[in-house]
């Protein structure tokens, strides 16, 4: 009886959290069928650092893009994002904020890659007529939701990749007119961005795994990336029903020396200065996976083990199911301790990319992108996407691709040159990488002189060029699992695995910092005056020569005689000589 009263109250006051809300979800399933899962993966890294990856997923059976029935009842899915999706007819939205650069060679491949700064890419629905207008409004709305300066995204740094960013969710769209990609390499991530991100979680930062997300520890790390990915997915293998999936991911790498005091001994408390107290009551599953493939010491030990093949590597995980109360023991807190020693061999990442600027002076330069294929015997193609701002004028006839010091012609090149102050360069190439090789892509550019108002307040810091994106289907040494199961761990189901023998990898290179020649900012008035003076000198000389004629110079009379002449003229008397 009391139960049903509570259920009714929750039905009226939606959004109020109840302690046992998971049981109530069935009582009003007609309006919203959503479920929430949370997961934390802790992976000790080869270099002594530790990598923690949070994923929070909300699945919701609804159709935002339905015209007839507006969605108004939000429970687990955040209302702000839902309204954004329906207002702008968004089919897929991926936004990430990253501080730091992912060091692939030291840390391996991340579960969710992201470039430094902010990155936003969106697939709009094909019913949208004005994609650019929707994009502009969307960036401004997201800028407000995440407290980030995404309003700096405009047409001068937005591109439409033709092959690189295919939809990660449902949909067979190939018309890249509905895709927009932009990156802000200069964007700084801080607590101000973390707080609204945490607010989107159903349990906020009060219960479940999100209690660990405290900014004073999270930002004291080598790498911090928080992202939101929204896409439509299939609920089952036959795809009889579709649902919207919202994944909020947070990847953080704590440094051995700055956070770990130099000891390869980590615990939840050392990393996050908090311990876990309970699972999120609204979550159907709340798990912690600890990677124990390299046999570290883990306490408390748990009998639950799981194996997963992710990123071409079969790894063993210890699973802690937080929905079971005995996990927390008598003190109602769970603190995992992890200790390892010795240097085990890290699996070399098969695909790795670097980028740098060559040249000297402020007139020209060269962008070099180096892509490494570390597979011992398999060659595979990669798609390289470069978006260069308009003020670095690329010369595509100087594009060279060399592998093993031999020319390697790309099989597909899509190049859209920049229009000054309107759009950036977009270069996409499909390059076949020979096995165990290094491929170098070079292109020359010239630096433009901008108008003095177009420089940032610190012009000598330089201008950022966004990261290149290398996307590839890397051949896997281990057979990948293509079966779709509901209880698959979240970290292995982010990218749909279509075939057994390869997995999808996206590698971001470093952003570049390029100096441009600057005018003297204190000089506008002086320049205008001086240039106009020179033009006036020209005008004056020509005016004199055009309007005057040559005459013999007759000396003029002194002043006294001229006055006398004046008086004589009045009197009518003959004038002086």
């Amino acid at each position, binding site marked *: 009886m009391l139960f049903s009263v509570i259920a009714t109250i929750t039905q009226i006051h939606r959004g109020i959290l109840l302690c046992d809300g998971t049981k109530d979800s069935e009582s009003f399933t007609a309006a919203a069928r959503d479920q929430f899962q949370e997961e934390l993966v802790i992976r000790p890294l080869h270099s002594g650092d530790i990598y923690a990856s949070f994923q929070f997923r909300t699945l919701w059976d609804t159709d935002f893009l339905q015209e007839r029935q507006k969605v108004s009842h939000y429970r687990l899915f955040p209302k702000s994002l839902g309204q954004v999706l329906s207002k702008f007819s968004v089919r897929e939205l991926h936004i990430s904020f990253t501080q730091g650069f992912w060091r692939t060679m030291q840390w391996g491949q991340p579960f969710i890659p992201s470039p430094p700064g902010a990155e936003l890419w969106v697939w709009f629905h094909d019913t949208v007529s004005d994609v650019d207008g929707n994009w502009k409004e969307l960036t401004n709305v997201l800028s407000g939701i995440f407290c980030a300066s995404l309003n700096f995204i405009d047409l001068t740094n937005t591109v439409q990749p033709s092959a690189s960013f295919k939809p990660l969710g449902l949909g067979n769209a190939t018309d890249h007119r509905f895709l927009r990609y932009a990156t802000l390499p200069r964007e700084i991530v801080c607590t101000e961005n973390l707080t609204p991100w945490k607010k989107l979680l159903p349990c906020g930062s009060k219960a479940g795994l999100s209690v660990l997300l405290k900014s004073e520890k999270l930002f004291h790390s080598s790498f911090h990336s928080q992202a939101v990915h929204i896409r439509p997915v299939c609920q089952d293998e036959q795809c009889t029903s579709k649902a919207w999936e919202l994944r909020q991911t947070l990847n953080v790498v704590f440094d051995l020396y700055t956070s770990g005091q130099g000891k390869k001994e980590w615990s939840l408390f050392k990393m996050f200065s908090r311990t876990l107290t309970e699972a999120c009551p609204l979550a159907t599953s709340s798990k912690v996976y600890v990677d124990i493939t390299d046999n570290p010491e883990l306490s408390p030990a748990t009998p639950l083990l799981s194996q997963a093949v992710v990123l071409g590597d079969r790894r063993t995980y210890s699973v802690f199911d937080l929905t079971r109360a005995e996990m927390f023991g008598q003190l109602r807190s769970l603190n995992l301790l992890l200790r390892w020693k010795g240097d085990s061999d890290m699996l070399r990442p098969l695909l790795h990319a670097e980028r740098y600027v060559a040249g*000297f*002076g*402020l*007139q*020209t330069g060269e962008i070099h992108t180096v892509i490494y294929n570390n597979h011992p015997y398999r060659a595979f193609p990669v798609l390289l996407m470069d978006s260069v701002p*308009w003020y670095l*004028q690329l*010369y*595509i*006839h100087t594009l060279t691709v060399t592998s093993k010091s031999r020319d390697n012609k790309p099989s597909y*090149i899509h*190049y*859209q*040159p*920049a*229009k*000054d*102050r309107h759009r950036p*360069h977009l270069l996409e190439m499909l390059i076949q990488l020979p096995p165990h090789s290094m491929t170098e892509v070079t292109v020359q550019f010239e630096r*433009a*002189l*901008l*108008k*003095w*108002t177009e420089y940032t307040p610190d012009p000598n810091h330089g201008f950022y060029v966004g990261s290149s994106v290398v996307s590839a289907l890397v051949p896997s040494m281990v057979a990948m699992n293509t079966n779709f199961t509901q209880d698959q761990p979240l970290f292995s189901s982010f990218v749909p695995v279509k075939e057994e023998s390869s997995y999808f990898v996206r590698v971001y290179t470093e952003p570049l910092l390029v100096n441009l*020649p*600057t*005018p*003297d900012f204190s*000089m*506008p008035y002086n*320049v*205008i005056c*001086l*240039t106009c003076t*020179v*033009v006036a*000198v*020209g*005008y004056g*000389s*020509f005016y*004199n*020569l*055009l309007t*005057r*004629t*040559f*005459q*013999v*110079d*007759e000396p003029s009379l002194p002043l006294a005689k001229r006055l006398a002449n004046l008086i004589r003229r009045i009197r009518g008397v003959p004038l002086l000589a």
Partner: protein
Amino acid sequence: MAAPLTLLLIVAVTIRAVLFRSSLAELISERVEVVSPLNAWKRVVEGLALLDLGVSPYSGDVFHETPLMIYLFHFTVDYAEIVFMVSPYFVDCLSCLLASLDRAKIAIGSNNLKSDLLFNFPGCLRHIISFSTCGLNNAIIALFIFCTLKGSALLSGILLALATYQSIYPLTLFAPALLFFLQRLYIPVNLRRSSFWCFTLQYAFIYVGSLVVITGLSFFLLGSWDFIPSVYGFIFSVPDLTPNIGLFWYFFAEMFEHFRLFFICVFQINVFFYTIPLSIKLKEHPVFLIFMQIAIISIFKSYPTVGDVALYMAFLPAWSHLYRFLRNIFLVSCVLLACSALFPVLWHLWIYAGSANSNFYYAITLLFNFGQILLVSDYFYAYLRREHHLTHGLYLKKKDGTEATLVLK
């Protein structure tokens, strides 16, 4: 006269061929004083590469040549060197022709050819071995002047249309060409006479007709009107602020946005503005008027290079007889030589060494343009003064019989 001319031309060919092959060519073809965004060879190659990739060369902002240039270079891109070697000869031959045709000149002789090439050397050296289409544009203007002087109105109109099609500024050469033909055909310049209007309309028809035909051909070449904002819109609105030897780049780099349109209009009108007053003043001297117009275009155009400077300097030997009336020639030569030496130095200091800033290069730009203005106005003064002496005698006396001085009043 033919033998020394051919000998000197052969010498010039050899020197140019040697310089083209040297490493100096690549160095100089990158310099901003020599190439501008409008006529850099690197951009032509880029435009052709874009065409090969299936993208229109005008879709980006890197290529600003006219479609007929694409057509020309599409076939001759491997022989570009020969094209660039051949084109400056037209300018040379023309200046020789001018020197020999100017009837009012007092001294005639083969020493004019030597002085001609002497003049050419310092001014044209950099422009000669640079890979830029400026040489071709200069060749077209030189051919136009040649045809005008030879009296062929049809060819002159067509070539003028071609020159205007390449860059808009030669439009101002319509008036002097027209005046030359009227003078040649003994038609008085009288707005009430029907013969004047008859010929003017004929010439205008040839000119405008050829321009329309050429523009139409360009449209059909690439199938779109994209080249008009890319070429002519670019020349007029000056969006690219790459430093060059002109006055526009720094001025518009430091311009307040609010006034940008106003000053663009002022600076562009400045080029066309001197046509009518000069035509009125020099209506009996159309050849000198052509020189003045070319000089004004070279100084005040939006993207000048040393190639444009070389064009009007090549004609200076034709007026070597004005030397005795020039007032500032020593100062002007010193200024121009000093600036030519300082341009690369200050560019290096700004861009490579980082110890100077843009103001240094800008100052030399100002000085160089000031020197050019002084040179042109000095020649104008000398010409007018000589005309005055031709009518009033060389040694003038005042009323009381003493030696007089001549002033402009």
